[in-house]
């Protein structure tokens, strides 16, 4: 019996000795690829210096809603960094992989960076797009993604709907009429924000890409400022992409500590700097000052102010049979 115990102890020692590399899976939404490639390298260096352990972070990207569905269906994400709080709520409510209080675990509603919705037009702005009203004029072709699958597209929808609701003489009827015209001008809806960028930038379809500010900056950087330009509307929505540890998975894998640290490090000086460099608006005041010239000042409204929070907005606008389903003609 002693011999068996010795063999088992040696085996356990071998297993623990070989487990020096920790692997995390970050399930994120479409446009964060480049940001998290940089951030993962920085975090791995930080964690190595702190603990001596290697961390390899794998990334999975897609439409935010699709990604949430995948996690609910068993994709073993250690952390989720999605576009909408509603998607994390769904993971908590349907799959029970995340604790219901996830939003209170990290500062600023667990949103370490923000963004907003802007317009990307072709160089010279041939259709003369200046603000939201220009988007619903006849003959203007819009390229948003589908709010049924894309988190960024839901922010886009709410930005469009909200500005119509808030403007002078606006209201529910005007907002509904506006959003109907908006999607009437959108001949194709991609499932994610990156797909919409591909449609507009690489396939040459449409006059205006309506979507994430960071995605618009990235298109300028990658494809050239001589081909496109950003139009900033007078008002838009404050998008707060949330992050959370997937409790069930990290408990099973034993990665609680490193997954928690991974998200907390997003709020560090370095994390905030990397966010700014990748065109996400940082939360940290110093970082905001550093990137002040990058991000134009826009009047921003929040989802809580205009729509009463994500739960209500989700049920009213994006649930099956909601306003989007009613107004969107396939």
């Amino acid at each position: 019996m002693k011999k068996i115990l010795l063999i088992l102890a040696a085996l356990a020692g071998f297993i623990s000795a070989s487990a020096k590399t920790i692997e995390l899976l970050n399930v994120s939404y479409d446009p964060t690829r480049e940001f998290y490639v940089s951030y993962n390298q920085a975090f791995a260096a930080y964690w190595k210096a702190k603990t001596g352990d290697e961390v390899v972070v794998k990334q999975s990207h897609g439409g935010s809603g699709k990604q949430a569905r995948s996690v609910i269906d068993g994709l073993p994400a250690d952390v989720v960094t999605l576009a909408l709080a509603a998607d994390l709520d769904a993971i908590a409510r349907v799959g029970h992989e995340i604790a219901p209080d996830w939003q209170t675990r990290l500062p600023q509603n667990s949103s370490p960076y923000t963004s907003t919705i802007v317009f990307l037009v072709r160089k010279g702005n041939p259709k003369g797009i200046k603000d939201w009203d220009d988007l619903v004029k006849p003959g203007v072709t819009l390229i948003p993604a589908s709010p049924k699958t894309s988190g960024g597209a839901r922010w886009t929808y709410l930005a469009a709907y909200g500005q119509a609701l808030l403007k002078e003489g606006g209201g529910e009827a005007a907002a509904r009429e506006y959003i109907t015209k908006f999607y009437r001008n959108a001949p194709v809806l991609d499932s994610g924000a990156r797909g919409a960028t591909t449609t507009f930038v690489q396939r040459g379809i449409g006059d205006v890409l309506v979507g994430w500010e960071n995605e618009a900056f990235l298109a300028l950087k990658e494809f050239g400022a001589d081909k496109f330009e950003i139009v900033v509307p007078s008002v838009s929505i404050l998008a707060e992409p949330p992050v959370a540890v997937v409790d069930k998975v990290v408990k099973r894998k034993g990665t609680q500590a490193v997954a928690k640290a991974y998200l907390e490090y997003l709020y560090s000086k370095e994390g905030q700097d990397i966010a700014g460099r990748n065109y996400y608006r940082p939360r940290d005041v110093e970082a905001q000052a550093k990137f002040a010239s990058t991000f134009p000042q826009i009047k921003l409204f929040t989802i809580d102010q205009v729509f009463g929070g994500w739960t209500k907005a989700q049920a009213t606008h994006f649930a099956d049979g909601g306003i989007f389903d009613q107004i969107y003609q396939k």
Partner: protein
Amino acid sequence: MRTLPYPKLAPALLASLLAAGALPAAETDDLAQLRDQLHALEQKILVLERKQEIRDEDAAAAAKAAPKIALTDKGFTLASGDGANSLRIRGLVQFDNRLFFDDSGIVNNSFLLRRARIITEGTFAKNYTFQLVPEFGGGNAAGATTPSILDANVGVNLSPELQLKFGKFKSPVGLELLQSDSWTFFDERSLVTNLVPNRDVGAQASGELFGGKLTYAAGVFGGVPDAASSGNADFDNDKDGVVRLFATPFKGDPNSALGGLSFGISGSYGREKTASGHTAGYKTDGQQTFFSYLTTTIADGHNTRLSPQLDYRAGPFGLIGEYVRSTVEVRPSATGPKKTLANTAWQVGAGYVLTGEDSSFNGVVPRQNFDWANGTWGAFEVVARYADLKIDEAAFPTYAAAASNADEAKAFGLGFNWYLSKVVRVSVDFYDTKFDLPTGAPPVSTAAALKQNEESLISRVQISF
């Protein structure tokens, strides 16, 4: 992506015409309108193409995520879209005909359902596996043996370098024993397999090192006598430790003639204590018993096995060789003196695939299946083997009867395998086994099977998937 050549040319053509002042104002307006219409048309076509592209992407993603069902020569498989979970049903049926020549009228010519198995295997969360194999075959003229659990085990695959297995499975000592029952050169394994443990209950760690050039297995098992399989529980308090190292040093080198050379060594060490005989008996290629201990003999003490082994494959040629030395401490009765007996065996087997396909440890895959209508014949292989098993002379007469046992069997085999497809094999094997009788034995053994050499013809029709 396709583009329309005409719409791209049209603006340039219009611009050059306008610059040349070749057109009056009204016609210029018409052309500008035409240009806008062409642009709108181009956009419509691009939108249609993009929509189709998105539909194709969605369909591809849906197909990737959808559960997969496959019925192939590897069995019936159900798998989740990501491949992390799967269930596979396989099967093995072997139907034999045994004919013995000049054997003094022993009733042993028979048809036999040698093996009949439904094999269920599965994977969960990519890293956790199981295997469940009941055996319905075997038995004799009196009827089938009671169905038994041949293999039932759970695997935890931590990495290619470290895989754990728990339950009942083959003890990793004998090389030919570790080869699938379906794909050994001959229908029956050689005399050597008499000296190694078969299935046993236990726990094992195994893995591949250096890019698969070295495999290892180390385990703790309940311990079974030579050639025996465990029941579903250990039969005594003591355990056997088993270790095996097997190297393929030139693996993956396309320029080396030794790319198919593998060799290694395995061994076991443990203690047995049982009231029954140490083995049920050692058997010939024709599966007739030529040696067994007295029923009063018991194993009581340490046992060891050591087996250097070799496998070589080069195109259609294949070779397998192994040697086993098995020692056991026995007593003639519960109170008799203890004695260490050492039995040894070796074998060399070779095969050549006449139709040119590669010889393999995992069977031959014909280039073309046998198809009567199309005139294709599958693959043909000839095989030969020589094996020898010696019993320790000290076994006689205290621990085994000299009059009814052989102390050595020397077996020569010649066979022909016809692979009708990857899953169906028909084989005919001829075995000639000569026996030496121990000192003190009468000139002719009292055992009917040992009164003459064993000459047998064993043929088999097999399906294995």
